[in-house]
């Protein structure tokens, strides 16, 4: 690990890591509790929903005997506590049950749709970071001046606009009217069968296959939704960068450096930003996680076959098993990224104090 090479920092970081070790254990316990709580809550509510789950399986026209057979097959004749016990056991074994909608194991469904969301969120976070950090630095350097105000307003706009609405308008303007980008979906059907899906991440799969026309098509499909999501994380990242940079620029070492005649550019990009980078990593990890949330609405608008659209579809068809499965998976990723950012913080920042 990188901290080992940093001499004095090493023992310090190790010490904190050890203390973090306990924190991680506590955190793990907390996650278990969290998931169990959610499992119970959603299971119970799912059972009192005024929806007949048998109906979802056999449909409206089935005869009584067909209905009864499905009722027993679903285990609905068992007492509630037994149903919950069986459900929990299955979830622990990684089996979220079968989707009423697709008639497939939910785990398989999620594995199939997840790469689409991952691809979208990753490109978006890259855009958000690459633009957000420099913009935030700029705003901090020009604090209070017009640039700063513009950045601030741009950020607030990002916080205020409903993403599904911007997506609709974006499609109307850039796809329907101008034809600059490809439409909804991840890839045109004409390219879809030109390559094998190894990773499920189409940018990588098309590149591996050397199908550059298909690659271009994927990029074109990604452009609009990724830019939109990227804009939203940019708003957050630039704002946080600005405040971290302001804190750094007020430090004594900056004044000292200035007195020593170090160039302003070097102070900003070399020293201040490098120090601000530590908390920034946390911010970026968190906003990566929140993109999962943003993806629910974005994917609906862009017919993006990812986790968000799967979740929405399940919701609209009262497919509770699938809803619960998605919620647990998204929750797990969310918690995981939180944990990761905590650990990164501990590893990267020698000054970390017990919180």
């Amino acid at each position, binding site marked *: 690990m990188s901290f080992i090479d940093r001499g004095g920092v090493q023992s310090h970081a190790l010490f904190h890591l050890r203390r973090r070790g306990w924190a991680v254990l506590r955190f793990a316990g907390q996650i278990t509790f969290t998931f169990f709580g959610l499992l119970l809550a959603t299971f119970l509510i799912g059972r009192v929903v*005024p*929806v*007949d789950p048998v*109906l979802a399986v*056999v*449909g*409206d*026209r*089935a*005869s*009584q*005997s*067909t209905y009864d*057979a499905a009722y027993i097959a679903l285990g609905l004749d068992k007492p509630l506590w037994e149903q919950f016990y069986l459900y929990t056991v299955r979830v622990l074994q990684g089996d979220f049950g079968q989707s009423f*909608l*697709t*008639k*497939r194991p939910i785990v398989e*469904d999620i594995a*199939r749709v997840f790469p689409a969301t991952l691809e979208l969120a990753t490109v978006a976070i890259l*855009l958000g970071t*690459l*633009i957000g950090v*420099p*913009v935030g630095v*700029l705003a901090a*350097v020009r604090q209070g001046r017009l640039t700063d105000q513009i950045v601030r307003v741009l950020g607030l706009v990002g916080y205020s606009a409903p993403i599904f609405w911007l997506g609709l308008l974006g499609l109307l303007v*850039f*796809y*329907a009217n101008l*034809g*600059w*980008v*490809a*439409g*909804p*979906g991840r890839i*045109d*059907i*004409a*390219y879809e069968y030109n390559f094998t899906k190894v990773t499920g991440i189409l940018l990588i799969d098309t590149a591996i296959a050397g199908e550059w*026309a298909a690659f*271009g*098509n994927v*990029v*074109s499909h*990604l*452009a609009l939704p*990724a*830019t939109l999501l990227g804009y939203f994380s940019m708003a957050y990242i630039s704002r946080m960068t600005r405040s971290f940079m302001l804190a750094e620029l007020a430090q004594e070492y900056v004044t000292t450096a200035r007195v020593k005649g170090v160039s*302003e*550019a070097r102070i*900003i*990009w070399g020293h201040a930003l490098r120090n601000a980078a530590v908390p920034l990593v946390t911010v970026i990890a968190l906003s990566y996680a929140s993109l999962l949330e943003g993806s629910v609405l974005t994917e609906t608008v862009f017919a993006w*076959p990812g986790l968000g659209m*799967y979740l929405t*579809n399940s919701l*609209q*068809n*009262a497919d509770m098993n699938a809803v619960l499965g998605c919620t647990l998976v998204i929750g797990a990723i969310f918690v995981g990224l939180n944990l990761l950012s905590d650990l990164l913080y501990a590893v990267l920042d020698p000054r970390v104090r017990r919180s």
Partner: protein
Amino acid sequence: MNISRRTLLASSVAAAALLKAPLAWAATPPDTLIQAWAIDDIISLDPAEVFEFTASEILGNTYDGLVGYDVDDVTDISGVLAESWEVSEDGKTFTFTMKPDLQFASGNPITAADPVFSFVRVIKLDKSPAFILSQFGFTPDNVEETIRQTGDMTFEFEMDQAYAPTLVLYCLTATVGFIVDKALVLEHEADGDFGYEWLKTNYAGSGPFVIRDWRANEAVVMERNQNYWGEPPALERSIYRHIPESATERLLLQEGDIDIARKLSPQDIQALRGADGIKVQEGVKGSIYYLGLNQKNEYLSHPKVREAMKYLVDYGAIADTVMEGLVEVHQSFLPKGFLGVLEETPYSLDVDKAKALLEEAGYPDGFTVTMDTRNTPDITGMAQAIQQTMARAGITIEIIPGDGQQTLTKYRARNHDIYIGRWGPDYQDPHTNADTFARNPDNSDDASAKPLAWRNSWDIPEMTAMADAAVLEPDTEKRAEMYRELQREHQQVSPFVIMFQEIEVLAMRDEVENFIIGPSFNDNSFEFVTKG
């Protein structure tokens, strides 16, 4: 500050480059037909289980039944896999003879063993559509004796009563009557499941296309059947893509990314009618839109109120605006394209008449009722339009929205006031709708059958008897007349405000030729499609 500005510039250039990435618009391949549709209703590809619109259409193009009918004249019934059939004197037993030298896509020959296996399988698996066959008296216990192979190419089909022959034959044209490849299915049998687990996602038929791949909520891919016993289709491949959004389908069609758009909203159809390089094809479908008035509600159970409500729907305006191009006004329970259809439409919006009727009923100031409404755009749009016209006679309707399962659960428990719904026939015989709209053998709360008449607590012993008599009438013309009479009375007195019949509309690229739209979804065929 120079550096920061340069960095900023660089990142915005990168973003711009991404936006202007190379766009390669490609027309669809000439030997492939790509249709955009909502295929999320598919839950199985097994003929014993399929009951959904899209899956029915897929099976219609990949499987064959014993018999079929002319899509332009459904009274013209002819053999498909069956060469001929005879009805015994007591009218209870059909004897079918199969056509010789036909084969499945697997290369296996088609013999009488296959239909016998297929039907026994349906009854024993007892999935949702099984009642279409089991209504003739077949049970898992007796089916092996009552449906029996009598020769290499002949088998018998023995029912518990002398049902009208047309009823039997129409039921066999439904997807549940499609013939599966016995040898192939048995290869994949596990734990005596008749290959159920396997066939859910696989294929064992004899139609012009074979099902290659089904990815739930994404696509279904079909390819030409290389062993097809008939004339092989011109298309090499036919694909459904799951695109549930009308506007998206329209854009894709205009850009040439798809050949046919299947799920279009009225405004998009309207826009596409005038578009360059695009044509629109339509045909009536069997689905009927109606309001069900629960007779447990004291207001709605009053005959005058029921009649008044039939005058409080602006049928014409809804068909011309909110549902433009998707429905036509239709006010009897048998849709056009069925034996015995009644095409009279006596009702139209007449607020004064409705007010007078309400006054006679003793509700001059109207009343308040709820309407359970499925949250799809078409149903919601209709419900809101009806809400507005009802209000003009003082009837306040509160819309209670819910997803399909929710509203249906409530409807089946008879907990609604008004239910706005859509009913599609299960097979091509008039009995399918008479059975549900005009039959209610047991109106008690724990009845095992839940026809629409039961769901609205409409107790009709006499009408039930009339419907039962029509099932057994061997003479086709007499039978048709019986249904017309039934519908006339139904139209007057029933607690159903029957409003519209569905029209299916397809918008396609100009070069697509010979798509056939039939009366039911398994009649829709792309077997003869060519792309010029």
